[in-house]
């Protein structure tokens, strides 16, 4: 108890130094937390993917389409429970800076395959019954102030022209990991229009989304689908939804690696700052530790004082940094919602924050503790006065 009192009072003996160290730790933990959240956001699609869903695309590249006729053949593959399809539309809303993901999908099969998008029954029916209808995620609708019934025009790039849509529903995600910034409209609307304007591009889909009966069968089913179209004009590549998403991330792996590296560098820097503080602190208190040793206190108690002080200082900085991560992530996420539709501080990030703080405190206290314990009492007492 007395040691706890000493270490807490010691921690605030030099308020300016302690305050600045805490500030440094707070900023480091905040930066670390935000960078980890950016990495999590990068993997949000992977985290939200289902083990019972497969994605089939053209084996050459995602930009090449597949015939719509494949859907019936895929449906016949043993183990397939659902088949849906869609296209990346890539439309622009007013200007390019308003970027958001927009797809056309087959609504009945798509909504059956993605139960994590929650729509009211009324909105669902309205979407299914309106060929020009679309649904938008809650965040996207909030971002542009769209209300059900509003007409929204997208300028097509892959499919040129102005495309009018009517908002029929606003979906919300089943949990925080679900992307609520998507714009989904009827594939039939696209196909009918394309048939009129560019007949050769009609009845083509960008990808199939396939539901499998059980995750254990996913690999076998994927193989069976690809074998089905072997040596056809449009060979397929089928992979799990997770692998499909990871394929996108692989394109930007160097950036993710760089972010992870920077987050580790931040922790190493703050470790050096805390270690410097603890070294100065211990040097100043060698006399105190010598007195305690003279009175009969042992190395364990001295170690407790130094480690405890490092933990108090680091713990306060980490707690403030972690608390600030939430509002900072909200501000960051809303500013960069175009790039990161899901930007949530994950529980794992907080555990990493805590772990980093603990490692910093312990690493910073090791050498000062060794010095304080190792010094002869007579030498320590000589430093007083």
């Amino acid at each position, binding site marked *: *108890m*007395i040691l706890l*009192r*000493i270490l807490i*009072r*010691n921690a605030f*003996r030099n308020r300016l130094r302690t305050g600045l160290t805490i500030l440094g730790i707070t900023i480091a933990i905040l930066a670390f937390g935000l960078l980890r959240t950016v990495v999590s956001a990068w993997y949000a699609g992977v985290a939200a993917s289902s083990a019972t869903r497969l994605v089939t695309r053209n084996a050459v590249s995602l930009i090449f389409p597949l015939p719509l006729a494949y859907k019936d053949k895929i449906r016949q593959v043993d183990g397939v429970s659902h088949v849906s399809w869609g296209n990346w539309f890539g439309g622009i809303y007013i200007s390019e800076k308003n970027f958001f993901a927009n797809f056309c999908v087959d609504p009945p099969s798509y909504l059956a395959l993605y139960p994590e998008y929650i729509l009211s029954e009324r909105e669902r029916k309205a979407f299914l019954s309106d060929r020009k209808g679309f649904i938008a995620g809650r965040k996207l609708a909030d971002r542009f102030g769209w209300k059900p019934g509003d007409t929204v025009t997208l300028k097509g790039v892959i499919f040129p022209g102005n495309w009018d849509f009517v908002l029929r529903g606003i979906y919300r995600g089943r949990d925080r990991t679900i992307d609520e910034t998507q714009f989904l409209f009827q594939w039939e609307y696209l196909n009918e229009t394309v048939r009129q304007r560019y007949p050769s591009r009609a009845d083509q889909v960008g990808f199939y989304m396939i539901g499998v009966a059980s995750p254990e069968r996913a690999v076998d089913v994927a193989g069976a689908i690809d074998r089905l179209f072997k040596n056809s004009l449009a060979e397929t590549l089928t992979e799990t939804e997770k692998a499909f998403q990871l394929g996108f991330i692989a394109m930007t792996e160097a950036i993710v690696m760089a972010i992870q590296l920077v987050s580790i560098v931040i922790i190493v820097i703050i470790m050096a700052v805390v270690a410097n503080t603890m070294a100065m602190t211990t040097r100043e208190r060698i*006399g*105190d530790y010598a*007195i*305690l*040793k*003279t*009175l*009969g*206190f*042992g190395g364990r108690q001295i170690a407790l004082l130094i480690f405890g002080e490092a933990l108090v200082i680091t713990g306060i900085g980490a707690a403030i940094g972690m608390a600030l991560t939430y509002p900072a992530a909200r501000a960051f996420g809303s500013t960069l919602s175009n790039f990161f539709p899901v930007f949530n501080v994950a529980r794992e990030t907080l555990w990493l924050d805590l772990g980093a703080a603990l490692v910093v405190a312990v690493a910073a206290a090791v050498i000062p503790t060794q010095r304080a314990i190792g010094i*002869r*009492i*007579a030498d320590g*007492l000589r430093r*007083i*006065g």
Partner: protein
Amino acid sequence: MTTEAPAPIIDVRGVSKSYRRGEVVVPVLHDITFTIAPGEFLSLMGPSGSGKSTLLNLVAGIDQADSGRIVVEGVDITRLTETELARWRANSVGFIFQFYNLIPVLTALENVELPLHLSGLSRRARREHALTALDLVGLSHRLDHFPGQLSGGEQQRVAIARAVVTDPTVLVADEPTGDLDRVSAGEVLDMMARLNRELGKTIVMVTHDPRAAARAHLKRHLDKGVLSADDPAENPD
């Protein structure tokens, strides 16, 4: 009829000590032998660098001799391990230093209580003992003051209270008046004399101050690591 002399409370035999400064070995104490009887008040004098404080540290168990034997209250402290020595110091020796050596973040009461945290006493008992010790040195009214809020004399009185709170048989004092004005120094010496006289504490005091040394029963001189013969001091009490 013959009266047998009491067994010495401190028995120092053939103790030598040297320090190493880089490659150079600097001898500090040479073959020191002396005894101190229970209830004695001994002052150790000598020029700076003569080895007084080193000898005091060896007797108090905060430094280790290169050779020789030091027996205090029947315990050969030269044979104790670091941990045993720490436990022995906590129970058997009270320390008074020139610069008081109080813990600056603890109040007077907490400083005096500090050694008792190793004793296994209850919180209440610790508090009572500390209050008694502070009352003994006349500082009952300064319990919650931090060392920085006390005068030098008051700090030294707190240090004396801390030294006696575990009721050790031996008190060691290293220049206890070296940092005090004349009045405060007189008060501290009075207090030490009282502890010796009324509570029977054996005191070994290192000092440069002839007035302080005069309060002891015995004076010993140390010069170039060699101890002089007994020199009964004039006791002003």
